[in-house]
């Protein structure tokens, strides 16, 4: 059997999701026996410009150069996998979209701001067609392995589209709301095994919002615990500001 040709590409991001691959430990050796990694800039000097079976894209699209590059990658890839919050939902880079682009450029770079090219942050599917999504900041390795198996078998992968609360309950965590604290679990896609809440923090919505949130239920919870809606929206915009681009496209 010939091993499928896989490449990793990084766009605007912290590269933490690629690092999660290296963090698999010795299990990585087994994964590398199943696929042929032909390009992975962070870990390899090899470069490849032929056709790919799978392009794994990390990072969001924030410059005209990014747009050109991602379109070329799409054109030579049989399947594209958006990998991590920056690629799947725009992630923390999307917070930039709340500011005027010239203002934020001036704030960081001063009078020479025009030298630093940038545009509205977009998730990968907002620029090219995406076949597989692995959400999360960072990605949850057990889910990545599941998706990789689906890709190798030529099967689709459906991102879990129920609230993170379901996994959180199964993990027997005390609900953050019962501690009087606002948490994004009720409106956020599951699939990470309620990673942050298991460690005493709240859900920050890094996997994106469920397609059909229980809006009334969430509103009732906020009312019951006297937590202001704008605080929740503000927290949601930490990862999910690029959602507005999808919403505008639908209108």
């Amino acid at each position, binding site marked *: 059997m010939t091993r499928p040709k896989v490449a990793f590409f990084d766009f605007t991001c912290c*590269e933490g999701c690629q690092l999660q691959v290296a963090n698999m430990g010795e299990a990585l050796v087994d994964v*590398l026996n199943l696929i042929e990694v032909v390009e*992975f800039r962070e870990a390899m000097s090899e470069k490849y410009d032929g056709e790919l079976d799978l392009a794994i894209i990390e990072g969001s699209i924030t410059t005209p150069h990014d747009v050109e590059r991602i379109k070329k990658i799409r054109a030579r890839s049989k399947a594209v996998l958006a990998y991590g919050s920056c690629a799947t939902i725009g992630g923390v880079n999307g917070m930039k979209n709340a*500011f005027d682009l010239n203002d934020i450029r001036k704030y*960081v770079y001063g009078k020479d701001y025009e030298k630093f090219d*940038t545009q509205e942050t977009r998730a990968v599917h907002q620029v090219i067609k995406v076949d597989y999504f692995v959400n999360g900041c*960072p990605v949850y390795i057990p889910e990545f392995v599941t998706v990789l198996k689906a890709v190798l078998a030529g099967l689709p992968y459906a991102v879990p589209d129920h609230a993170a609360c379901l996994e959180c309950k199964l993990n027997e965590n005390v609900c*953050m709301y019962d501690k009087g604290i606002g948490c994004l679990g009720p409106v956020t896609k599951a699939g990470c095994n309620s990673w942050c809440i298991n460690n*005493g923090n709240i859900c920050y919505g890094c996997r994106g919002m469920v397609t059909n949130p229980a809006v009334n239920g969430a509103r009732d919870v906020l009312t019951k615990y006297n937590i202001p809606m704008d605080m929740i929206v503000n927290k949601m915009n930490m990862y999910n500001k690029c959602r507005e681009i999808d919403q505008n496209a639908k209108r």
Partner: protein
Amino acid sequence: MRNVKVNVEYLTRVEGHGNIVVNVKDGKLETCELRIVESPRFFEGMLRGRSIFEAQHITSRICGICACGHSLASIQAAEDAIGFTPSLQTIKLRKFLLHMENLDSHVLHIYLLVAPDLLGVKSFVPLIGSHEQVVRRALRMKKTCNDICDILVGRHVHPISSIVGGFTKLPKEKDIDAMLDHLYKMRADMNETVALAATLKFPQFERDTEYVGLVSDDAEYPMLSGDIGSTDGVRLKKVDYKKATNEFIVPHSSAKHSKLGRGSFMVGALARFNLNSAKLHPKAKEIAAAIGLKPKCTNPYLNTAAQLVESVHSLEDSISILEDLKRTGVNYHEEIIVGLNEKGTIPVKAGNGVGAVEVPRGILYHNYEVDDKGIIVNANCIIPTGQNLNNIEQDMKKLVPEILDRTDEEITLALEMLVRAYDPCISCSAHFLDVKFVNR
């Protein structure tokens, strides 16, 4: 007369995007630049309007490799701004977390990013065939650090439970035993690593420069606290960090450059070693002596050797911290509940705070100005790779004329290895790297 054109687009085996451009015309060096082409990310701008209690969550996303370091610098700046003093137990656990990050990052750099050059291959992947046990050891050591971070803070990439005020989850007795067990087992792999490193031949090159790092009058090797010091005798309080960095913009880089007493300076493992080697753990000192590393070392390629020495220090000091914690026991009353800041549990006041922390690549500064509600009004982050960029270019300018008798390929590799030795983290700098040879 010789013409040389180097044009390395997207330097590999570094974190983030950079190019090297070198142009030698008629034997004269005309261009010698490290171009940072990472997309700007605007973290400082995006932090405005965010709560001081959210800052570490956001700023750890500046970098996946040094996420723990960013979160620790961020927390320190936030606590400084609102006037919160962490407990001794919290400081102890933060020092341990910083050790795990340095150890993890140094192991990744030594084995997966640098060793392939020294063994004459393009990446660690072919090493799986030729040196399988070495690759397995590297991945195993990395995983040990990751497994420990999983226990301590939920994960290494973007830690979960370390926040302003302390930890949302404190390790149970069995957790301390599990972490200690991991570290005791790692000693055997560390010994093998030291033995391997002793066989590696690093390139010869010397350029004396100013070395900058945290310094203190304590007996401890300073990582989490201290003043800013240099081998040229500079000593500044962390609040005066701008006097130590003097950032300026150059047209060929989306990362800002820095200078201090001389035209440029170096931060990172070699700088720390040059400043503070006397304070290393005795075992780390032994290793330094065994591989012949002594201060003041002016060969930047030996930054990797300094990382090895620091790895031994981090492993042994971590064991000491945990053994100490096991003896004294953990005070679980200090466990803090996230989000209670929204209810005013930790008092907030307007202020300006600075965090200065030694992360794997050098001093990392975070500075936040907050209003009386704890909302960030201004933010500034100065990352170590940014501080090193100018020094890397000065090294390249001295190195190129010394190696003009070599082939284009050899010159390119020497330059790539030089840049890699600094272990640059370009995602961080994105405020970073391109090699272009023009006209040979």
